[in-house]
Structures are given as C-alpha cells and as structure tokens.
C-alpha cells in the first residue's frame, strides 16, 4: 500500500473506529 493511499485511508478508518467506540460507550480513539 503506498503512502498516499495510507494517508487517505487512515482518517476514514479512525473516524469509523471512533464512531463504533462511541456506540460502545468508549472514549474517542485519539484520546489515548
């Protein structure tokens, strides 16, 4: 996977994981 693709995908992945964390009652991922 090239760096541009990683840079484009990381925010989308993290946003998704934060949404799911929030649904599970957890803190935002970037808070740790």
């Amino acid at each position, binding site marked *: *996977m090239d760096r541009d693709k990683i840079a484009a995908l*990381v925010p989308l992945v993290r946003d998704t994981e934060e949404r799911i964390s929030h649904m599970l009652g957890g803190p935002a991922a*970037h808070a740790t």
Partner: protein
Amino acid sequence: MRNDGPPRGPYLLGSLRKGLKVLDRFAHRQSWSLAALSAELGQSKPTVFRILRTLEEFGYLTKDAATGRDVPGLRLLGLAGAAVRHEQLRWQALAPLQDLARKTGETVHVGVLHGTEAVCVQAVEDTRLARMHAFVGERTPAHASALGKMLLAHRTEAELQALYEGRDLPRFTPRTISILPALEAALRRIREQGYALDEEEMEIGLGCIGAPIFDHAGRAHG
C-alpha cells in the same frame, strides 16, 4: 506442525486438547483428509482417526459424500451462533463498516483478540473481483495483522509476556515481525501514531490499516 499458541496450563485434559486442535483446523480449511490432518498436526493416523470418528458421532464433523473428507457439521452452527450473539461489537460495528466500505471500496472488518490470534467478528467485503477476503470467525496471527497488532499495542507488557514468552512468532513473508523485541518496538510506534499497518506481513500484495475501538471501560476491545 503449526505453532499457533495452544493454551498451556496444569489442568488441561490432554485428549480433549488433541480433539480441539483437530476441530480447530477446520476454521482454517473447510475439508480435511485423515492423511493431511495427521501430517498437519504431527499426530498419528490412528489417533486422528479416533478423534474424527468421535467428532462425527456428535455432529461436529461430517463426511463429504463426494470427496470422503471430513467437513464441519451442523452442530457447529449452533455453537458459532451462540458465540457471536453475545458479541455486541459485531452488531454495533455493522453500519459504520458498511459506510467505510462504501467510501473506500475496500474490504473492512473488526475483530477481537483471542490469545495470540485476532478473530474477525464482523466483515464487509468490497465488490471487486480481486479483493481481500474476510469472514466472521476468520483467525489471523495477531503479530502479523494490523488488527492484531493494534489490539496487542493496548495490552500491558505483562500481558504480552504471558502471551508470547517462549513461543515462536511464525514468519509468513519476509516482512513479518518474527522476534518479540521487534514486535514490542512496533507496538510502541503503533500506540504513538494511533493506528497500525500491515504491510505485506501476512501475505505478499496485501496491506491493511487498523485502528482501535474502545469499550465503556476504555479498553481496546476491537
């Protein structure tokens, strides 16, 4: 014989452990001949034969009429259903994963750590012909996947030692992390940057990005 970290402990039943290791192989490949399974596990054919017959008797395995090989039986369906029903993450994750798959055109999945393996509990595959496959129940060695490394990165040093001390880190490609100190260094980087990458560490040509899902206790759950 594979080294995928069998549980160790003083109270384990040897015969049950052998039986479960046989059953476990069916999560990785759907059908097995006696000879192939015996070779895979490093167990004698008579031993594996008796285990297969027992599992068939109780409906956990059945014979494929066309090939004569053993395949998973319907009894497993009930167990699998019970295992995933209690996993809240599986259902909470579905809609966000579908959104992510739509936006990226990539296969996306979430999973949990079970021993030294990452277990997929929900997956949405992209629709291209040449795509990464992911399915519920799929297990991958945690040290060689983005999901697994992400989860390991949020375990304590003592937990990591308990998981890996004295165990090999199997190498799947030249890029697989295969020694514990290197894995620990990689996990520190992952904690700092907030996401994990698998750059052809499990399979050449495959890459993956993993980010943590935290539960109500603040623990990286998936």
